[in-house]
């Protein structure tokens, strides 16, 4: 449940950097995602076409505050997004570093508190830091979105042990791996580890065939979710024969 809402797909898809509006449209459909993320930018010419794509997709819109570096910018952007998209959902990004696009955890928690008190349902883009996660929950967040790797890097799950700890530390909070996913195998791994969803953009938009890659990610996320539900076997150090020894012919 993501703020009392059940999602039919655990893949959340970004809408930026696609080769064409039609490919964006087809990629959303092929992915099966029912949440897509969008931004706000200075009024341009292509706004009308984009609004139509959003509407036609039938997806729930998760506006973001991408590009904001301060509490004030993020809060103002969130208010503008709420009015424009008619949703209390906001993917809260407060960037702390221009090279790594790492979130500024102090500003993030402050902005999350302000927005939560104002009725927003905040999806904070955060690191895997457990204490920051706790502070975000205290601030009113009911979902956390730890990064897999720096935005757009395609490195996958860079801090596996830390992400495992985070999953264990917040068993009842929906956790979405947001950013850094480069391949369907990485998205599947996140789901196998018990994360509740993955959010990605560049890995699909910059694939040779974005529509094909969107489909691959959609299926990987389903496979990972099924695997987690089914329960993975524990790894072993030694081989254990899978074929029974009983009844083995004596042919030596």
């Amino acid at each position, binding site marked *: 449940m993501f703020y009392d809402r059940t999602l039919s797909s655990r893949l959340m898809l970004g809408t*930026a950097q696609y080769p064409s509006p039609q490919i964006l449209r087809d990629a959303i459909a092929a992915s099966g995602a029912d949440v897509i*993320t*969008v931004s706000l930018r200075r009024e341009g010419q292509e706004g009308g076409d984009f609004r139509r794509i959003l509407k036609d997709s039938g997806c729930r819109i998760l506006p973001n505050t991408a590009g904001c570096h301060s509490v004030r910018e993020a809060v103002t952007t969130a208010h503008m997004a709420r*009015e424009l998209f008619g949703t209390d959902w906001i993917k809260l990004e407060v960037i702390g570093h221009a090279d790594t696009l790492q979130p500024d955890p102090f500003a993030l928690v402050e902005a999350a508190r302000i927005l939560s008190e104002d009725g927003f349902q905040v999806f904070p883009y955060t690191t895997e830091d457990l204490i920051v996660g706790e502070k975000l929950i205290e601030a009113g967040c009911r979902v956390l979105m730890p990064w897999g790797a720096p935005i757009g890097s395609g490195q996958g799950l860079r801090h596996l042990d830390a992400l495992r700890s985070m999953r264990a530390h917040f068993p009842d909070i929906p956790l979405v791996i947001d950013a850094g996913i480069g391949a369907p195998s990485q998205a599947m791994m996140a789901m196998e580890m018990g994360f509740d969803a993955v959010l990605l953009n560049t890995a699909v938009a910059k694939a040779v065939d974005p529509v094909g890659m969107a489909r691959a990610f959609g299926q990987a996320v389903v496979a990972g979710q099924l695997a987690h539900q089914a329960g993975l076997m524990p790894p072993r150090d030694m081989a254990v024969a899978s074929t029974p020894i009983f009844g083995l012919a004596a042919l030596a």
Partner: protein
Amino acid sequence: MQIDLNGQPTVTLAATLAQLIAERGLDAASVATAVNGEFVPRGLRDGTALTPGTRIEILSPMQGG
């Protein structure tokens, strides 16, 4: 008067934010506005007077990740 619209020095005859949106030919329901860094809800655009040098942001939905 001259204002700052989306980072560009802009000359306008509009006296209010609502008039500015109309003057620019924008669909009022498809944009969100901020004045001097503060969000201005749709319902307050009529009552938001512009003065020379006012910094205005008019934003619309855009592709994002």
